[in-house]
């Protein structure tokens, strides 16, 4: 894994497959026979040939996964016959993950990681946002602050799930969905949370919470940093209320 761009010329030792680039989080690790994940390539065009040399020496990665393919890496992958898949958010991958890569069908699977679809509604009223503190009775992220969240049931649309959770958790019925954005994904250990975010408006700030939460607060958007939140909540909020 590298969260930084990689150059195969100078960044990886052609004789051993060891990562030399000190900027790379996996400096000193060996890529031979492993699936090598990094956002994209950088540096000299000779990097393509360096990938070929790794292959001949038996030190090429088994596959490459990129956020976005660029010509140097794509050229190297083809001439060295290294399977490559791009368009993958490599921030969801962790060093040591088991991955299935199929470059012909262009997919990547993580057999040991489950993806869970949840809705998160950020409730807005009079310029304030509602944060709820999760109770000790819930299955995950106890005591952390969250929006109105819950699993999307099989055969349920995400907006239906959002309305159901809003009714159950804060007894809000007269709500208006102001905004819906594309799902965001967050990795937490063996789970990828696929969060479907909604921004909803309620007229009345008087709400009633159920067993899933122990308390709530109406906050202004810039206060979010003070709260220990579930993974990705800040990003969800900034995407929902940003332009």
């Amino acid at each position, binding site marked *: 894994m590298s969260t930084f761009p990689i150059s195969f010329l100078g960044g990886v030792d052609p004789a051993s497959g060891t990562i030399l680039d000190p900027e790379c989080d996996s400096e000193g690790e060996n890529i031979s026979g492993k699936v090598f994940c990094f956002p994209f390539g950088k540096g000299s*065009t*000779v990097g*393509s*040939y360096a990938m*070929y*040399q790794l292959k001949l020496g038996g030190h090429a990665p088994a596959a490459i996964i990129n956020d976005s393919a*660029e010509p140097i890496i*794509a050229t190297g992958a*083809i*001439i060295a016959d290294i399977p490559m898949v791009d368009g993958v958010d490599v921030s969801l991958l962790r060093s040591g993950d088991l991955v299935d890569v199929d470059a012909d069908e262009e997919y990547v699977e993580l057999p040991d990681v489950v993806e869970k679809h949840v809705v998160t509604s950020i409730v807005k009223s009079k310029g304030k946002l509602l944060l709820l503190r999760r109770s000790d009775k819930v299955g995950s992220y106890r005591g952390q602050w969250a929006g109105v969240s819950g699993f999307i049931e099989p055969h349920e649309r995400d907006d239906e799930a959002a309305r159901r959770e809003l009714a159950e958790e804060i007894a809000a019925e007269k709500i208006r969905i102001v905004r819906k954005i594309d799902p965001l994904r967050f990795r937490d250990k063996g789970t990828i949370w696929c969060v479907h975010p909604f921004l909803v408006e309620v007229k009345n700030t008087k709400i009633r919470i159920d067993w899933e939460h122990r308390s709530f607060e109406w906050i202004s958007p810039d206060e979010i940093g003070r709260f220990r939140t579930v993974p990705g909540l800040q990003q969800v909020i900034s995407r929902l209320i940003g332009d």
Partner: protein
Amino acid sequence: MHLTKQEERTLSGEEGFGRQKAMELVVALGEIYRAKRLIPITSAQISGASFKTIGDAGIKFLEDFSHEAKVSVRASLNPLGLDERRWQSMGVDKKFFDKQARIISAYKSMGVELLYTCTPYLAGNRPRQGQHIAWAESSATVFANSYLGAMTNREGGPSALAAAVIGKTAEYGLHLEENRRPRVRIDIKVIPDGMVPLTGYLVGKLAGKRVPFVNGPSMSEDEHKSFGAAMAAAGAVSMYAFSDSKRRKSTNTSQIEERLSIDARDIQDCADGLKGDDAWDLVAIGCPHCSPSELRTMARALKNRTPRKKSDVWFCTSRMVFARCPKEVAVLRKFGNVLCDTCMVVAPIESSYRRTASDSGKAMVYLPTLGKQKASFRSTKQLLEAISR
């Protein structure tokens, strides 16, 4: 991307492994840049010829690939790391020579034309206006697009070779008319004597990735050659449009979003910044390779002078131009080495020299990095005066 039945067959390997690999490469790059289809090319220019730039990894790839592939369109080769005949006089060792020889024979067996120059357009491979080509070598690419009106992206060595093998490239970037329209206008009132390369260098810095419209003094073909080369080395520019009353070429300026200017002061500041000092052990002229008229001008200037011999001197040109100018070569030889097939950028000059003076804006970009040199910019005239009396 849409592929024809024939292209699909190539991709599936029915025409052999080499053509399959070449097709895979062209298609993969086309998909990255969202090309809709492949288009035929009339010629290719292949970079990655010097052992210094491609190393052992490059040799291995080329030798393996050469067993499988032949080029199907005219394809010429970039400069080597040495002059095939005069390499010993350049201080190149036998080990380097042997590695270089393997690269040459790999390209030769693929049917690549061994022109060994960055100016194929002065050595027989000169595309015409409107022709689609797949050229690597940034200085040749920018000349072909801007001065000759041919259409090419700035290819890498392997992608130009792959395009030459299948005779096609993916249609994106500068192959499409809409991407050739200038986005920034750069006004230049005067270019001081000998400062054309540095002006190109400044345009490259200002334009970044955008196609510039250069509204400035009229330039000769030779001047366009060095102007564009410096521009492409200093920025990601592969094409510029320019005002030229003689050619009456109309430029579509509707996409211009910014207007900038370069004045004599900017050019002087740039020259001061790249001046370095007077202590050099090599004077290198000919990046890009000298044209016949450049050799003629220099020979005329030096004819009645005597060599100073304070430093080594390289005049770099192609073997085609060399052969065409025996009288000029005879004059220049009194003052230094007239080299073919190579130049100060791709030769292993760091093994013999530490400080190099040049009149090339492109060389100012690469001498300090690739060549590990302390570089000094001087105009051609200043260099000729420094090497003679």
